[in-house]
Structures are given as structure tokens and as C-alpha cells.
């Protein structure tokens, strides 16, 4: 959080709309007025989750291109890269959580809402392959608005090709913990997000397959206010737990401890 730019002293809360000062956001970036957690940058997530200075970035195999020549897609990519200082909506590497070495993937909702495209898909497969090869637990922070339309069918086919690697990972007995953060929708939600051994979610995160507006339009149904919130999904039996980010590191450490406790005995 030390790297926050000067001009960002005040920012508005996405949920209640109030203007909140950097100091008021606090260490865990939670709105003091409505209690909603702010969406995080990759750096903030890394700092909050992993042991200090333990994150070792792995470079992505490929870079994003505007192959279908959509108007403005190339511009959007450049703008997102400038804004986030990342090549794409995923950052991968290895890191430590209480001395457990893990393979880590952090998706970035500030990069075109974390939409799943060729490069993001390849990044996820890359960190899964790394976890497999080094036999490291995989901790994946998921956030995605769904498949990236500008890459058409190529975005869709990330779903089955990621799942193919994830199935090998799970079959190999590697631990995979996914933490679903705001938002986790569509193509991400209906592929690797829910397919891990453990599925945790950050409080208040929006999680679902179809967007609320689409459901209202196609089914004409009245949706409850809390529909598709992490808390709502927990109530409907679809998550192992909802964890506040203040406690997330401890919970991850506990889960990792519980999966290695027998090792010392054996």
C-alpha cells in the first residue's frame, strides 16, 4: 500500500459511493461507512496475503494481441497495461504463506475486469503446470467478468483447456485452493473457479454464472438483493466458507498446515 500514487488520497467506495480517504480505508481497504471491501490491485493482494518479500514473479509465456482487429481493443489493452503496470489480467509466481511455499495466481479485476482471454488462460495453465512440476499447492485468487468477447471463441476455449490441466493437477494429488473475489462470473466461474479442492470467497464478492441483468431479462424473475453475493452462495451450499480479507492469510495458513500435518508423522 506504500506504492499508492499521491493523487489517490481520496477515492470513492464502489458500493456506497462515499468518498473515503486513504487513511480511512485502513490496512485492509475496507470502507469505514458501509463495510464493503475495496477491489484490490495485484500488489495490494500480494502484500496482504503472502509473507513479506516472498513473492517471486514468473513471466507469462505470451503477450496479448488484437488478432481479430476489433476497433479499440488494442487501445484498451494499452490503457489497461498503463493503469495496472501489468501485461495482462493475471500475475503468477511463487510465494510463502507462513513458510509454506505455494504456486500463486492473482487475477486482476482492474485489467479489463479480469476477463479471460488467450493470455490470461495461458497464464493460469502456466501456474498450474508449475504447481504440478514443483508439486506445490496452488493458491489462486480468482476475479473475472467472464470471457473476453474481443477474442471470441479463443476466449471460450480457455475454459476447457484450463480445466484439462486442472484435472491433471487435482489427479496428481496437488492441493488447489481458490479464493473467489469480486467479481467472479461467467467463463471463469463455470470453469476453474469452482473446480478446485477448496473454494473460499471474499465477503461481499459478486459470484455467479449469468449476470443479474441477463437473468432478469431472460427469466423475468425478481432477484433477491443479496443474490449472487458470497454470503448468499454460502447459504446455498456452494462455498466452503466466506472469509474476510483481514483473516484470509491465517485461514490459508491453517488450511496449508492441515494438509501437511500428517507429513511429519509419516
Amino acid at each position, binding site marked *: 500500500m506504500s506504492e499508492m500514487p499521491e493523487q489517490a488520497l481520496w477515492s470513492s467506495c464502489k458500493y456506497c459511493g462515499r468518498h473515503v480517504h486513504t487513511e480511512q480505508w485502513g490496512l485492509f481497504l475496507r470502507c469505514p461507512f458501509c463495510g464493503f471491501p475495496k477491489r484490490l490491485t495485484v500488489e495490494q493482494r500480494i502484500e496482504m496475503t503472502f509473507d513479506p518479500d516472498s513473492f517471486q514473479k514468473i513471466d507469462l509465456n505470451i503477450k496479448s494481441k488484437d*488478432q*481479430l*482487429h*476489433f*476497433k479499440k481493443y488494442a487501445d484498451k489493452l494499452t490503457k489497461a497495461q498503463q493503469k495496472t503496470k501489468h501485461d495482462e489480467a493475471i500475475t503468477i509466481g511463487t510465494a510463502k504463506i507462513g513458510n509454506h511455499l505455494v504456486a500463486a495466481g492473482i487475477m486482476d479485476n482492474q485489467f479489463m475486469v479480469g476477463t479471460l482471454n*488467450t493470455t490470461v488462460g495461458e497464464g493460469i495453465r502456466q501456474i498450474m503446470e508449475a504447481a504440478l512440476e514443483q508439486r506445490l499447492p496452488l493458491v489462486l485468487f480468482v476475479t473475472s467478468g467472464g*470471457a473476453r*468477447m*474481443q*477474442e*471470441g*471463441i*479463443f*476466449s*471460450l*476455449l480457455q*475454459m*476447457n*483447456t484450463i*480445466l*484439462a490441466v*486442472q*484435472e491433471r493437477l487435482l489427479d496428481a494429488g496437488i492441493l488447489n485452493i481458490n479464493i473467489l473475489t469480486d467479481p467472479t462470473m*461467467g*467463463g471463469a*466461474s*463455470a*470453469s*476453474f*473457479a*469452482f*473446480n478446485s479442492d477448496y473454494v473460499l470467497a471474499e465477503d461481499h464478492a459478486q*459470484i*455467479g*454464472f*449469468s449476470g443479474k441483468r*441477463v*437473468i432478469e431479462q*431472460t*427469466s423475468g*424473475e425478481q*432477484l433477491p438483493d443479496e*443474490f*449472487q453475493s458470497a454470503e448468499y452462495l454460502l447459504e*446455498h451450499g*456452494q462455498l466452503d466458507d466466506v472469509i474476510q480479507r483481514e483473516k484470509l492469510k491465517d485461514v490459508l495458513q491453517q488450511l496449508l498446515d492441515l494438509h501437511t500435518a500428517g507429513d511429519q508423522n509419516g
Partner: protein
Amino acid sequence: MANELEQKLKLVRDVNRITGQEIIQQLFHQVLELHGDRINHDDPALFSGIALFENQPVTILSVDRGTSLTERIEKNGGAVRASGYRKALRSVELAEKFNRPVISFLNMPGADASLESENEGQSLMIAKMIAKMGQLKVPNLAVFIGEGHSGGALAFANSNRIVMFENGLFSVASPEAMSAILRKETVSEVVPMTAGKLQKMGLVDQIIKEDQDVISQVNTAIKTWLDDFNNLSSNELIKQRTEKFAHVLAYWDKMD
């Protein structure tokens, strides 16, 4: 949207469009439908059953939009619910156990978008079905009679071979949804979703011409698929799928 695409959409969404049910009746024998997700529902949008193709037992999955207004409502316009994917998953698990190849006939918008499906884990059910189809130890074949979009169609299309009727469409989202998201841009001209373009990418393996006897073409396509895949081991089948889709993804770099 461009005229060509509008024409295709009109054709595949027509009530008189040939359905999976008609093909099943003409090409298979001893058809036995198997209902239900074993929990609480029997999704009418998803037909699942066992039948003989020539002398070989096969598992059939079929999604169509319905051929009358009543049927269209009942079948939810071909939008498969979470319970439908649960039924499909159960069906392919049995197919694997009893060594039956799996054939899917598709003409569907995508997966159901509703409160009920969301509450019943639509995301996870689609993920499980896509994953299972990719790892399936028996051969699978997807026949796109009409359109099929999003993860809801990929759940069936994650197969060793994909055959598509010449007016068929397979896309990340329905052309209407894509146009809405990407605003004015002419989606159909730049995004590959038609049979011809998908064949060029290696995603569609064979196109069924709609000006000839389609039933006999489908018959031949199924025969050829069985001949090509019946003798492969489970590892070879899984490897073939992995290579097929890796090959398609590699096409991304080869586009202009």
C-alpha cells in the same frame, strides 16, 4: 449484424429445423431415454438416453429448442438448467463405465440463466461437465445441428470430434449478446463463429451440407468417427482432445 449471419440465425432457430430427436429416430435403434438428475429435477431441455448405432450401444445427449410453442416453453428454448448438466454428467459417467461412445446433438442458445439454476450451482455443473467430457475414457462426438454458445455448449463440444451443419454457429456468446457487449462493432465479420471459419481453425472437423440428404451425411459422420476412435485407448482419446484444442488455440497466432 451482417446479412449472412442473420440468415443463419433465422435458419437454425426456425421451428421446422431438423432436430436431434428426428436424427435419433432415423439413425438409432432400441432408444431408451433415461431421466432425471437423481436429486430433484428432470430437465426437459436435455435428452439423455442409450441406443444402438448399427450394433454398437452408444449414449446420446440431445438439446433442441422445441418444435412447438408448448415444447419451446417446456424445453426452455434449449437453455439447459443446472439440473440438466447434472443429468448429462450422470449419463456420461455411465457411458464411461459401460464403454459406450457419447454423441451430443446440439441446437441451443447456451446455458439457462435463472435464479433456480444459479442456486443449484450452474457454474460448477458446467465446469464439471466440460472437465468430464475432456477426460472421458470413451470417444465423444458433438454434432452442431444449429447454434450453441458459451460454456453451456462447450460442455458438450469438448469432444474428440466436432461436426457442424453448414449453417451452424458456435461462439463465446450469442451473436446478439456479443453485439450488445461490443456495441456497434460488426461482430460476425471479425469473430469466427460460422462452420467454415471454425473448420479453418481446426475446431470443426466436418461440415454437413444442408442442400443434400443430411441424415445420410450424419450417418456417415458417426460411422467414420466410430471407426477412427473405437480402437483408441482411454489415454489416446484424452491426448487427442488435448492436442485438438491446443492446435485450435495455436491458430490465434496464425490469424492476420
